[in-house]
């Protein structure tokens, strides 16, 4: 019945303009990408059950699984590169028809089969997915390819090959005509994420074998690293929004477990709770947004990501619905990706072990929000009205975040918190880039940022491993003489983050600035909008980034060593090898250094994968490789994003601004502070007569920054406090006056009624009946208990007597 009912409804995705950009038949690795998240998931179970019995306490499972997953991700990436340029197989019918229940109908079945044979499609073995694969009667696949290529012509393609995502899904369950499927969606974006997540996770695994060695929950730690990797991979491969929600929540749970890894100390478990609860706030938005999308764009029938984005992209969804969905999803992005004003959990999350910070809070988990926006981009493209405008919520939140968090990084004394705010700031860049329509720039920045930020986090962990503290001002300084290798890699990471030519950060940051389209006066524009305000914020952010990284490098590695002469603030559970570390700190071991070398290499080189088109120093075929392979240009599920033309003037000016920021910080720390420290022989970290101490305005500003814009006060003190008090008072008043009155009256009435009922009905009628039945059963029992003698032979006698009676009855009946 359901099938008939649904078939009667108009199938909302069918129309002449429909262009499908999905296939179900491609390279084996692209079709079977689900193996990649499966491996760490299996490793999680193995570690959980057998980890403690293994010689390496379970770490070998994690490293092996993630290592194989990394190799598979590489092969999948290579397969994707080939697929992107050379795929000319058969396209699926629009994914939205994947749920078209008409095929349950017998009448339609024959029709569909006819279409099959006419076209001679060879999809045996895929017949279980026939509902998705069957093409319409007339349209042949070559028509669809032609359409797709045509669409690409409008977009950005010049190679002539359409961008075709690979989807492989299977039905999970069916209920009420809605098919819940589970599957993988492989396109450039997910392939890139597979590479980033598996590589960084592998390096973090190797790093952790040294960093958390001897920890009391070593096995547990590796189990959760595996589970975390699996959840993130599951999330980026999901082909429907339901699966995305599951992956999103799994990632959140794992971050909770890992941030609170050392939960014996109150601040750590508080930080874990804060991360979890703040994320819950956003998760409500995620749910609301996804439900809106399900009904508005999925027609209440499908959760499939591609069919939803397809429908939106073809203009099949009302603007109001998209505004609601985009705003609700914004809340999710703000909490998960640490955007202002829900970013407060992220710096606190530094309570977790450093490898976790690198994995979760730099490279993978926090980019889940960015990834979600990139994946569901048409929702934001239409909902936020990105093209042709100059301001929108997403871009503005990103811009405010990037400057606000950049400022906060200046007042931190904890090296990891500097990096945490830096992460928030860079996530602001990504959100802003998405908001201004520079999709590729945002994804590219996500890509490059993952490497240099993981590099910096692991580097800070290496330092902390040596000095047993994260406090730059108290316990560090002069580390470059003790740890020259860590110093070099940290410098490379900082320079890449600051955006210095030609390291990774330069290319992606410049692309974002170009993408704002705000550089109109000097030429070099043509982005989707003209976001001048956001360009300005991006410039300020570039200067701030360079400056706070200079400060961080000075406080950690330069000046004089300030630690060693007081007790270790060992928040980092390494008490067992304290003895070995007494005396001067020393360089970390190879399992910590090699990941740093690898990440440094990536930090230097990875920016070259997306050289801008105007970069005349290299042949044209080297330019915009990333854009070509990652951006779904011309795909039916992706909006026609315009691309800004890069400009030399902007690149030079933004570099100058970054150098200006770094120079200012250099002048303050390396020249003034260092000079004063040398001349007085003191161990200084700030000037004693600096602006903050002499100028009232500067002092006030400093205070605001130290108090983190009072956001924590706002949340716990004002919002929680203000709601707690009045609600409690109102509840009390209601309780005493309203509810008590009702209750008392009801009680008195009940007592009076009850008395009457008791006297008349209860005592008279019911009592008699009950006592009567009691007496009857008592008497019966007294009689019957005599049979129950406890003697087996009596029972046997009764049994035989019964059998004899039955036999007699049987004979009598037969005789009759």
């Amino acid at each position, binding site marked *: 019945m359901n099938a008939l009912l649904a078939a009667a409804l108009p199938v909302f995705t069918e129309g002449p303009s429909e262009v499908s950009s999905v296939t179900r038949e491609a390279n084996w690795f692209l079709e079977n990408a689900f193996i990649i998240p499966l491996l760490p998931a299996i490793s999680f179970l193995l570690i959980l059950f057998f980890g403690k019995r293994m010689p390496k306490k379970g770490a070998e499972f994690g490293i092996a699984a993630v290592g194989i997953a990394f190799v598979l991700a590489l092969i999948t990436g290579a397969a994707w590169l080939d697929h992107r340029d050379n795929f000319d197989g058969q396209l699926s019918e629009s994914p939205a028809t994947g749920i078209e229940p008409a095929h349950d109908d017998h009448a339609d079945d024959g029709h569909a089969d006819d279409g099959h044979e006419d076209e001679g499609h060879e999809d045996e073995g895929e017949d279980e997915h026939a509902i998705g694969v069957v093409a319409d009667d007339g349209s042949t696949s070559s028509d669809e390819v032609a359409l797709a290529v045509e669409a690409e012509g409008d977009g950005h393609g010049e190679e002539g090959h359409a961008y075709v995502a690979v989807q492989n899904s299977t039905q999970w369950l069916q209920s009420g005509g809605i098919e819940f499927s589970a599957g993988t969606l492989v396109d450039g974006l997910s392939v890139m994420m597979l590479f980033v997540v598996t590589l960084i996770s592998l390096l973090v695994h190797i790093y952790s074998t040294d960093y958390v060695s001897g920890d009391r929950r070593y096995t547990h730690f590796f189990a959760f690293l595996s589970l975390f990797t699996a959840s993130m991979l599951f999330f980026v491969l999901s082909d429907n929004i339901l699966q995305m929600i599951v992956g999103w929540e799994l990632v959140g749970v794992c971050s909770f477990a890992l941030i609170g890894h050392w939960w014996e100390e109150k601040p750590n478990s508080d930080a874990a709770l804060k991360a979890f609860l703040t994320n819950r706030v956003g998760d409500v938005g995620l749910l609301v947004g996804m439900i809106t999308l399900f009904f508005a764009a999925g027609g209440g029938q499908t959760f499939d990501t591609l069919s939803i984005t397809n429908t939106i992209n073809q203009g099949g969804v009302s603007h109001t619905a998209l505004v609601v969905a985009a705003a609700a999803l914004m809340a999710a992005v703000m909490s998960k990706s640490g955007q202002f004003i829900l970013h407060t959990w992220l710096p606190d999350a530094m309570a977790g072990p450093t490898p976790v910070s690198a994995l979760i809070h730099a490279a993978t988990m926090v980019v889940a929000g960015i990834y979600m926006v990139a994946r569901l981009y048409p929702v934001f493209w239409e909902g936020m009205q990105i093209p042709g405008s100059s301001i929108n919520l997403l871009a503005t939140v990103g811009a405010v975040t990037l400057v606000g968090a950049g400022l906060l990084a200046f007042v931190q004394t904890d090296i990891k918190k500097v990096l945490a705010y830096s992460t928030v700031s860079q996530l602001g860049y990504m959100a802003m880039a998405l908001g201004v329509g520079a999709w590729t720039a945002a994804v590219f920045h996500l890509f490059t940022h993952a490497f240099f930020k993981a590099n910096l986090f692991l580097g800070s962990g290496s330092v902390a491993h040596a000095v047993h503290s994260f406090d730059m001002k108290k316990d560090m300084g002069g580390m470059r003489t003790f740890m020259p290798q860590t110093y070099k890699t940290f410098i490379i990471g900082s320079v890449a983050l600051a955006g210095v030519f030609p390291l990774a950060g330069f290319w992606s940051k410049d692309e974002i600035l170009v993408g704002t389209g705000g550089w109109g006066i000097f030429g070099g524009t043509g982005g989707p909008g003209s976001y001048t305000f956001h360009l300005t914020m991006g410039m300020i952010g570039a200067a701030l980034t360079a400056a706070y990284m200079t400060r961080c490098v000075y406080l950690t590695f330069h000046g004089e060593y300030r630690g060693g002469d007081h007790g270790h603030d060992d928040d980092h559970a390494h008490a067992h090898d304290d003895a070995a570390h007494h005396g001067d700190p020393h360089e970390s071991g190879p399992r910590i250094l090699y990941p740093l070398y690898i990440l440094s290499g990536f930090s230097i080189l990875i920016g070259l994968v997306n050289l801008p088109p105007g970069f005349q120093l290299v042949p044209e075929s080297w330019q915009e490789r990333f854009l070509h392979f990652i951006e779904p240009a011309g795909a039916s599920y992706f909006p026609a994003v315009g691309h800004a033309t890069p400009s030399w003037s902007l690149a030079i000016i933004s570099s100058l601004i970054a150098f200006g920021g770094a120079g200012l910080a250099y002048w303050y720390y390396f020249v003034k502070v260092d000079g004063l420290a040398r001349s007085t022989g003191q161990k200084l970290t700030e000037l004693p007569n600096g602006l903050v101490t002499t100028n009232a305005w500067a002092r006030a500003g400093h205070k605001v920054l130290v108090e983190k814009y009072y956001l924590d006060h706002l949340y716990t003190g004002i919002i929680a406090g203000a709601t707690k008090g009045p609600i409690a008072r109102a509840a009390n008043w209601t309780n005493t006056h309203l509810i008590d009155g009702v209750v008392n009256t009801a009680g008195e009435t009940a007592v009076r009624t009850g008395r009457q009922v008791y006297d008349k009905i209860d005592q008279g009628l019911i009592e008699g009946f009950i006592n009567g039945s009691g007496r009857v059963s008592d008497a019966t029992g007294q009689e*019957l*208990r005599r049979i*129950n*003698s*406890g*003697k*087996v*032979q009596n029972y*046997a*006698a009764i049994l*035989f007597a019964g059998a004899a009676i039955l036999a007699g009855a049987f004979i009598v009946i037969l005789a009759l």
Partner: protein
Amino acid sequence: MLLNQFLLLAAALFCIGVYGVLVRKNGMLVLMSVELILNAVNINLVAFGALTDDVGGEVFALFTIAVAAAEVGIGLAIVLLMYRNRRSIDLSEADLMKG
């Protein structure tokens, strides 16, 4: 056909068995009486099987023997435990289940 004689023998054995089960106080003897009952049934099964020229009777008899073996095993175990606990296998004293 000797059917009647077999049936009479079986009936006699059955009655002796039932008498033994109901009357004897000794647990061992009760168990042996149970065996008598079962074998009476076996005789009936084989006799009727031979009459109708059907191996089903013999097969059922075999099943009965197998089940009886298991039953005796359990029965002996119960009697043995009873003896260990009470130093007696007198069934008339065993009335713990009295209501």
